[in-house]
């Protein structure tokens, strides 16, 4: 399909002019927003907003977690925190294995190769 390029300077092309106007408005808005998000005030405000949300929602989340934990305990099922604490222990074991693995690698690499027997 042929694409017609709008001419935003041609008064005989009202659609081109409309698109030009739209793009110019968007450019101006983007520039203004760019300047806004670049300010110290914006960084401070978003940081505060996030902190407030996380802090104020914490008691509700805790309440839900507690009631959920009670229900799951009655059903003899593990809670989310049981599973994540297991994940933590596994990660710690993995990290210790990583260390051992890396040490083994470096030991094997530093070991002089056996001279070949004739």
């Amino acid at each position, binding site marked *: *399909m042929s*694409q*017609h390029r709008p001419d935003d300077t041609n008064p*005989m*092309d*009202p*659609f*081109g002019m409309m*698109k030009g106007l*739209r793009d110019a408005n*968007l450019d101006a*808005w*983007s520039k203004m*927003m*760019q300047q*806004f*998000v*670049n300010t*110290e005030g914006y*960084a*401070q405000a*978003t*940081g505060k907003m*996030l*902190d407030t949300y*996380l*802090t104020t929602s*914490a008691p509700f*989340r805790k309440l839900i977690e507690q009631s959920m934990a009670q229900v799951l305990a009655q059903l003899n099922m593990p809670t*989310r925190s049981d*599973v*994540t604490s297991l*994940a*933590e222990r596994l*990660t*710690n074991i*993995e*990290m210790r294995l*990583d*260390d051992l*693995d*890396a040490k083994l*690698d470096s030991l094997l*690499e530093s070991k002089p190769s056996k001279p070949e027997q004739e």
Partner: protein
Amino acid sequence: MFPPLWGNLPATNALLEQLWRELDEMGNRFDASLRMMLTADPVEVGQTPAEVVYTENKLRLLHYRPVVAQPAPVPLLIVPSIINRYYILDLMAGRSLVEYLVSQGLDVYMLDWGTPGSDDRFVSLDHYITGYLRRVVQRVRAHAGQEHIGLMGYCIGGTFSAIFTALYPQYVHSLVELAAPINFHDSGLLSQWASPEHFNVDLIVDTLGNMPAALMQASFNMLKPGAQIRQQMALADRLGDTQGVQDFLAMHTWVNDNVPFPGEAFRKYIKECYQQNHLVQGKLIIGTQQVDLGQIQCPLLTITASRDHICPPDSAAVLNDLVSSADKRVLQVIGGHVGTVAGHGARTQMWTQLSTWLREHRSSPDGPGSYG
């Protein structure tokens, strides 16, 4: 030609002709969009033929099927960012950096980090580098039968690759850093937003576990306000261009396919890198070792993008001042963080120069820093 209605008034005719053409195009666009909605296939991304040669937890190591009889002896391992999906480097046929490198005779491996779950919240930054990445490098060495490999890291993957090369220089033959932040106290907005005065990373990790993908996505969107609206409008303007729409949808799929950042890794990354900038100061400790970027002695190519708002050029280029490599180069290309690797102009702007450099530095498997 539009038939003259009111005599031969040229102005009126031109206006009506324009109106007619615009309505015609509008009809075509509507028709094309309707056809696309009814018949379009789901967007297929990451299509370059590959086999999985190693898996661990959620990560996969992919080996791309060579298309030449004898690919370059030194394999190239690509390390993508951990917060985006790997397939931005293999977006779709004709728009894939991986496909291009394979076609140039390189032996390419890709690390797909996978999608972390809530069970991964304790995986640390150290674990990513001395655990996952180190084991993947060992697998590539074993699979390719080579002592040394080439590393190419993109974005955070580039930061990881630089740290890895500094810690284990004996495995790395040459290093390519693709829009990878090294100096985190830069002119970029992310640096400002992540400062300790504004960003309480402990509260986020302690409350949410992993850093949610949606929260990161929202921050990235605010780096360039208006960009999304502009993209939607551009899409509406070219709905009749099937290939263009497919390209847009592929990119759109990737942009919205973010993954969470594992909590403990995120905590250390933000605190040690963004807030204290320990990497460039040589104070970052990974595992039990201090990361000294001066330990990097292999050939190094640092690629920066002139309009990169996520990793400003200076933030990446500083690596070349810190390494001990004799053979090092900074290549600045015109474009943004993503456009540089997967944009329309990527092939002519970046891929060809990257491929030339890689081929020059992949011909001899003799050892780190030695090349033919």
